[in-house]
């Protein structure tokens, strides 16, 4: 569904992402770990097409199209949706109006807002004076209305209190068709295999993984993908050893691939129907 090919991205004159290769297939949810400043948000920004992230070389393919130079709105209409880490305030535009825009007028705004316990905020200006957790709920509400094929989530749990983190997790699972629901005439396995929605989730703390089933984990370190594997295993390793350990892996990668930064592709979670396996 999404394929990044030797993607190098700069902000101004400074290269911040180097030779990124990544593929997310339909139905897969990938997690992106990495220390502050490693380039996680920039990677999502480049995929979405924000002007400040200039593609120096490489390609971005989505749904079979080379979207490397497409404008943001065309990418959104083709099915990419992004939950911003720090969304801007839009004065004079209500959340209700924006959710309507996201759903192209085809959604029941009230009903979607009810799901996120967010009805009281519908008539407030977009993000004006919202707390950290309210911002995240507002972002997810917009994505629910937008219903994208590829969901990019930038730290969906940051600033969210314990009470709401389960709610956030539930909504993300729904966005990714990973909520467990009974459907007549279909086994759960069939339902899992029929999933098409894909996701790329940035998490700094990893808390969201307690609520969200994910398939593949990556570590982004100093602008390079330095590691791939089972998300829980990676998180466990990062929690115990810290990102310092990534230095060793990236040195190793560089030596092995002759400085191309071509990191070993893992096999974990390739069959999205098989679940994550590594949980618990």
């Amino acid at each position: 569904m999404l394929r990044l090919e030797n993607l190098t991205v700069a902000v101004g004159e400074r290269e911040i992402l180097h030779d990124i290769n990544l593929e997310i297939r339909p139905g897969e949810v990938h997690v992106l770990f990495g220390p502050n400043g490693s380039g996680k948000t920039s990677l999502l920004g480049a995929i979405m097409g924000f002007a400040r992230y200039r593609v120096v070389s490489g390609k971005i393919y989505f749904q079979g199209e080379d979207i490397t130079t497409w404008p943001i709105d065309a990418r959104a209409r083709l099915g990419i949706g992004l939950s911003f880490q720090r969304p801007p305030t839009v004065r004079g535009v209500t959340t209700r109006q924006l959710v309507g825009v996201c759903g192209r007028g085809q959604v029941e705004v009230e009903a979607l807002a009810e799901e996120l316990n967010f009805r009281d905020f519908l008539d407030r200006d977009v993000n004006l004076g919202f707390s950290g957790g309210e911002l995240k709920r507002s972002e997810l509400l917009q994505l629910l209305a937008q219903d994208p094929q590829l969901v990019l989530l930038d730290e969906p749990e940051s600033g969210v209190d314990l009470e709401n983190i389960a709610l956030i997790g539930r909504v993300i699972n729904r966005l990714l068709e990973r909520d467990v629901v009974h459907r007549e005439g279909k086994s759960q396995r069939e339902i899992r295999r029929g999933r098409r929605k894909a996701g790329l989730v940035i998490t700094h703390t990893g808390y969201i993984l307690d609520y969200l089933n994910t398939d593949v984990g990556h570590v982004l370190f100093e602008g390079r993908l330095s590691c791939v594997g089972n998300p829980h295993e990676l998180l466990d390793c990062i929690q115990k050893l810290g990102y310092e350990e990534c230095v060793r892996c990236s040195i190793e990668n560089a030596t092995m691939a002759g400085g191309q930064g071509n990191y070993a592709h893992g096999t974990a979670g390739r069959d999205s129907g098989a679940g994550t396996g590594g949980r618990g």
Partner: protein
Amino acid sequence: MHTARQEEILARARAAAGKAAAYGEDLDLNSYRVSAATLPYLNDPTQLAAEDRARLLAAGVDVTGSDRAGTFIQINQSVVHCGVAQEGLEVLSTAEALEKYPWAEEYWWRAVLPDQDKYTAHVALAPQRNGYFIRALPGARAVYPLQACLYLQQEGAVQDVHNIVIAEEGAELHLVSGCTSAARVKHGAHIGISEFYVKKGARLTFTMIHNWAEGVAVRPRSGTVIAEGGLFLSNYVCLQPVRTMQMYPTAWLQGPGAVARYYSILVAPPGSSMDVGSRVVLQAPRTRAEVVARTLTTGGEIINRGCLVAEAPEVKAHLECRGLVLAETGVIHAIPELLAKVGNVDLSHEAAVGKIAEEEIEYLMARGLSEDEATATIVRGFLNVQMMGLPPALQAEIDKAVEAGEKALF
């Protein structure tokens, strides 16, 4: 036969006849004609020509009078209609009111000074007294807004008006004042003196919609005196071209707990020059004020002033100037001022001028809007000031004016 006070007003005006205003281009008032013709009175203002009615409607004045508590219309220098539909409210021409009520002199040149500048002097020295006198009797509550229209129809003419508005104790009054010029007026001037008096516990909402033209010069001069517990809410909308507009209305909060709020929405297309501000003087304890301005240039020049003066303790006031520059040649100059003359006051201001934040455009584009749609949405939001405490019909009126103005933008 003039009283001593009238003599004094005239003397002061004569002395100020050549006095340039503190701000704005100095107009040569001799370049305008003073209309001598008296237009016929219309019992039914729907008899106005269709093109005139359309101009009035664009300034928020509906000649059918539906959902209005009363109507006043002045064309050039003639009062052509004056009517009221609710008990407890009065709508007269100023000339008539001064004749009918000897006490009306007490409200004449009290909130605005005759020798402030050549424009106030011009009106004070004018041979006839134009403008409206609108009053809500004690405790009267206007269900619908009253509407007043000042219409400049004659090419090359100066229109002068002197308005008095009184909300007596405990009264509630909403006034929509639509000021506009005929399509054929390429050169003209409007000078408007407005004196507002908000008595104890009264509420007065004054909504002014300006709809002038490229060649019209406008010099309003307004003052408001607010007594204990009174509320004055001023909304000003100017989204159409005007050659030069300068005003700096002032509210004096004289009674404890009085409140003043000014909201302004200004759009300056190329060729327009506006120097507009709002000033509030907090003279009694526990008074409050809020001044909010949204300015937008598509090539014209806007100077947006704001001034809060605290002269009594325990007062609180906030000033907000936000400006959007949508063209390379446009100018916005925000000048917020705070002046505290005593301790224990809380004055604040917030000013921001610039282009539309790219971050906001990209945010909306990520939701599927094109760049143009995203820009239009942000501009619409910027101009969408929800003015607190307005009756829904009045807010709808303002929204309509803003919507009409936006059409010209995109």
